[in-house]
């Protein structure tokens, strides 16, 4: 059956949003889950969700916020083993990353990423949003769906935990 005009427009709009932001969102998801295939799955599902809810989305300019929150939620599911596409080993990020990534990252970076993945969900999200995306506390709070105070304390605890882990490594 041929898609209707409205259906086609919806597809085009979601595809356009994907073109503009998928790469950045996959990068974010890779930092959360460790490997690109899983990260792409998470981002695909987030956009699929957006596509299904597009008509109900009141404010289309908030589409990116919506899909970013979906990506963060999908990453949490991966960590909790609830992601529907099967479990991913997170204990050793070296297993999940490509050989190219392992070679190119260098040991110092790998240590940081491994430590990052040992943080609780909220601390990891807060640290990545604050220091990878350079979000303000308010922006990170909006993305995570928590208060600014929670972002502040999660970031602080996350950084302290990382400092401990990295010190132990060295």
């Amino acid at each position, binding site marked *: 059956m041929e898609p209707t005009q409205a259906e086609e427009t919806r597809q085009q709009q979601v*595809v356009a949003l994907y073109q503009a932001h998928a790469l950045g969102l996959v990068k974010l998801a890779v930092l959360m889950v460790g490997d690109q295939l899983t990260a792409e799955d998470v981002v695909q599902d987030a956009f699929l969700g957006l596509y299904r809810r597009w008509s109900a989305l009141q404010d289309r300019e908030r589409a990116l916020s919506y899909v970013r929150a979906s990506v963060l939620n999908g990453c949490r599911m991966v960590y909790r083993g609830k992601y529907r596409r099967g479990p991913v080993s997170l204990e050793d990020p070296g297993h999940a990353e490509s050989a*190219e990534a392992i070679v*190119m990252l260098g040991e110092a*970076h790998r240590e940081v990423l491994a430590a990052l993945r040992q943080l609780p969900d909220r601390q990891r999200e807060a640290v990545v949003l604050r220091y*990878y995306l350079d979000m303000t506390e308010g922006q990170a709070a909006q993305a995570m769906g928590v208060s600014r105070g929670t972002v502040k304390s999660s970031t602080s605890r996350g950084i302290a935990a990382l400092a401990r882990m990295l010190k132990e490594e060295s």
Partner: protein
Amino acid sequence: MSVEDRVRAATRARAALVRDVRPLDLPGIPGRRLWVRRRVAWIAPVAAAAAVAALAVSLAAVRHSPNAPTAPAAVPAVSGMLPEYYAALDDPSGPITQIVPGQHQTPVSVRIGDDRTGKLIATVRPPDGQTFVGLTAAADDRTFVVAAERFPVQQFSPSANAVAWYLVRLSPGSAHPAALTRLPIPGEPAGTQVSAVALAPDGSELAVMFQQNVWLPRTGPLMIRLYSLATGTPVRTWTVDTKGFAAGFGWYYGRYSNTALTWVNGGRTLAVMYGINTSAGGPPLAYGFSHVTIRTMDARSPSGNLLATGKVVFRLPDPGYCDTAQLTTDGKTVLCGEYGGNSVKPSAAYAPKFVAYSVATGKSRLLYQLPGAYGIGLADVLWASPTGSTLVGSVYTQATWGRGPVDQTAGLLTNGTFKPLKFPLTAVPFAGEIAF
């Protein structure tokens, strides 16, 4: 380095390795394949492109949101392949001189801008007693390394110009959009002059090309050294005796080249470009830069003789003059900004042009030539897409050599069309004065 800085460096290095994502599979659009590829042309059907354009207005607020991830903008009408941010040298007292170094009246600042909106994001001034002289960018669109020398610059006295290295990190949309941090990388080895710089795509290492005694009749060896950004430690060093001639490019113009050294092949290979200039004591542009040679080498090769490391992949065919050249990151094309004109044999028959050479065959293809005829015409390659299908270049012309007004334009060159770009700078940037 603080834990926060280590997190920034590690996350951005990891993210920089993600270059492509698979197409979006939506129900009802079987077979749609719209790959997302950073710095690569948007290969979308016309209809889809039109839809993207239509959506641009409604998504503008989202796209420019300060918390947006580092993804390409939805509708880059012209500049879609360009990284979003650039850093450029800017001399508030006037154009950075192109011919004779050491004539700055005020210290050179670094200006950070958004090339899609034309918006100036920040101006970074050098520390007291210093002036910025070079810059290079990582692949994450947020990280730059800039070099500073003592101000005023001691012309023809390389050992007096102690180089200091700084990290500039962008946080667009925040209260402090650009932060300047001193790096632990040491100054140049005694008696040498920096020619070229290139920051690795993941921001972990800085490649620097030095040459000894470039202003003296008997020039010393050329040296390429990799430094760890985290520790400042020299990681590897390769040298080559250039038989007394000055090689490289940057030293000649008073700012460091950021195209003569490039990281290709996903950051695994270093491309080294050098030309033999026989006119160190003579009039600028009278000769030289006619034997541009490019070598590629595994960046993990052990230290040693440059000639024993890697291989020559390209040599500019005679006759040919490359003012600036750049090997594309896919390793298949050399983009050359050619020049003409000299003070020995005045003419008014030159026009700057951009030429692409096939590395495999050596064959050239004219990409664009500025209309008109000039006493002198220069063309510089400032940035190139991975396949070379698009470049940012600048051209400089003067109707009569050494007399009358000069005209400078920077633009985006694609499919034979040179579309001018405007930067909020005192003057149009030349190679080494801007990094994307």
